[in-house]
């Protein structure tokens, strides 16, 4: 930020440190998401196991942010942009921790998925994964640069993830109807997709927070939302049941 420093220099250092811890958490969350999706795509149980394990580090960093924020609020009584900065760090850390949790869930499913036969190649999972990874990377860049416009691009991008999720949902339901032996695999993949979709939502949360840090006003409530799977039903063909 193009601001002059605080009269109390230690305060500047503390704010910089807070921002750095968030960036570090973000970097870890980013690579967790990438590893988890890779583990699913490549059916790599070992990579998945490492990913599950690595989640602890992010939890630890989140606790560090929590404690640090409480300390800053108590000792510095931040105002205006500092206040927004500090409160936002708390929210972003929580969102990153949740995103990493979803990555961990995906990694766990990846382990289970190695024990069941693969279904037809599901391209949508890696594609969704790429989209969400991109969102997380971009939103972290936006955070580091305090760039609200860049954050807004991420905020809008989530609609596309939701659309992918919708089509994947229908695709997997169709596979399950085709052959009940697919059900186990498809059920796991549905959860994987849901986890990835949730990561996208968290990235948009972070984008909203960045917008608040920079401009001091919240984005409008109604984000373009596209997840309609809660209303989606796929019926077997009438001919099949009649025959």
């Amino acid at each position: 930020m193009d601001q002059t420093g605080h009269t109390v220099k230690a305060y500047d250092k503390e704010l910089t440190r807070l921002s750095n811890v968030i960036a570090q958490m973000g970097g870890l969350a980013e690579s967790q998401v990438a590893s988890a999706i890779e583990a699913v795509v490549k059916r790599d149980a070992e990579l998945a196991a490492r990913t599950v394990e690595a989640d602890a580090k992010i939890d630890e960093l989140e606790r560090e942010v929590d404690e640090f924020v409480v300390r800053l609020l108590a000792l510095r009584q931040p105002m205006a942009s500092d206040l927004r900065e500090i409160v936002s760090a708390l929210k972003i850390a929580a969102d990153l921790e949740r995103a990493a949790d979803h990555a961990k869930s995906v990694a766990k499913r990846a382990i289970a998925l190695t024990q069941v036969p693969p279904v037809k190649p599901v391209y949508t999972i890696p594609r969704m994964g790429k989209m969400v990874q991109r969102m997380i990377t971009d939103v972290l860049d936006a955070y580091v640069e305090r760039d609200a416009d860049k954050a807004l691009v991420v905020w809008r991008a989530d609609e596309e993830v939701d659309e992918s999720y919708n089509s994947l949902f229908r695709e997997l339901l169709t596979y399950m109807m085709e052959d009940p032996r697919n059900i186990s695999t498809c059920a796991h993949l549905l959860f994987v997709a849901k986890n990835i979709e949730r990561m996208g939502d968290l990235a948009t949360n972070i984008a909203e927070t960045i917008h608040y840090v920079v401009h001091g006003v919240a984005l409008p409530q109604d984000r373009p939302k596209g997840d309609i799977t809660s209303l989606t039903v796929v019926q077997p063909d009438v001919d099949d049941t009649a025959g």
Partner: protein
Amino acid sequence: MAALEMTTPDAAGNRPPKFSTKNVNVFYGEKQALFDVELDIVENQVTSLIGPSGCGKSTYLRCLNRMNDVVEECRVDGSILLDGHNIYDRSVDVVQLRAEVGMVFQKPNPFPKSIFDNVAYGPRIHGLTSNRAELVELVESSLIRAGLYEEVKDRLDNPGTSLSGGQQQRLCIARAIAVQPEVILMDEPCSALDPIATARIEELIDELRENFTIIIVTHSMQQAARVSQRTAFFHLGKLVEVGDTEMIFTTPQDQRTQDYITGRFG
């Protein structure tokens, strides 16, 4: 009487400001202390004036009950309307004005008189009561409203100066209230008090705003944030920004306000 029309609510139902000030310029001899200040003070609200030392906030406060009149070489230009009336008009009785616009200072300054007489002083010189019983009632109700009565009711004859700092300040507030003002000006009323006494004054300010319009100069931004509904930031004799306190302390619009309240002033 065009000015009087300003005291009726406008079409939107907004109440007219208690004080309406425009183009206020203040000079101490050659030196200009305030530049074109334009500020409206909302009735029954606490407005805090903040800014670094020498920014003009106390000068502005003192314009509002013509305390600057007593400073030699001080010249006040511009329009300062109280309920639509120009307080610098020749016909204005300054003593009466200062009864309507009371003041509480940085250091508690009780008169070297008894607690009772400190509060009774104003009503006596303004002839607000017609007999002893009324005076006693007014003194007691003023002490009650200032949150001091319970602590001093058994020793109203003791000198005001025998009280603690925080009690003395509340005594000064009781003294200001006793003449039934409409506005109370406070110039750093808590800077000589400990945190507990400060909290009691802040609680009192919040209660008083139901009946009075309060304008407070403070160096403590936390205090401004705690007690006021509107905050005005002064810098180098200019009013930089005024707005809802919440807005000023979360999303100030001017970089100078931002720098000041976050502690970045060089």
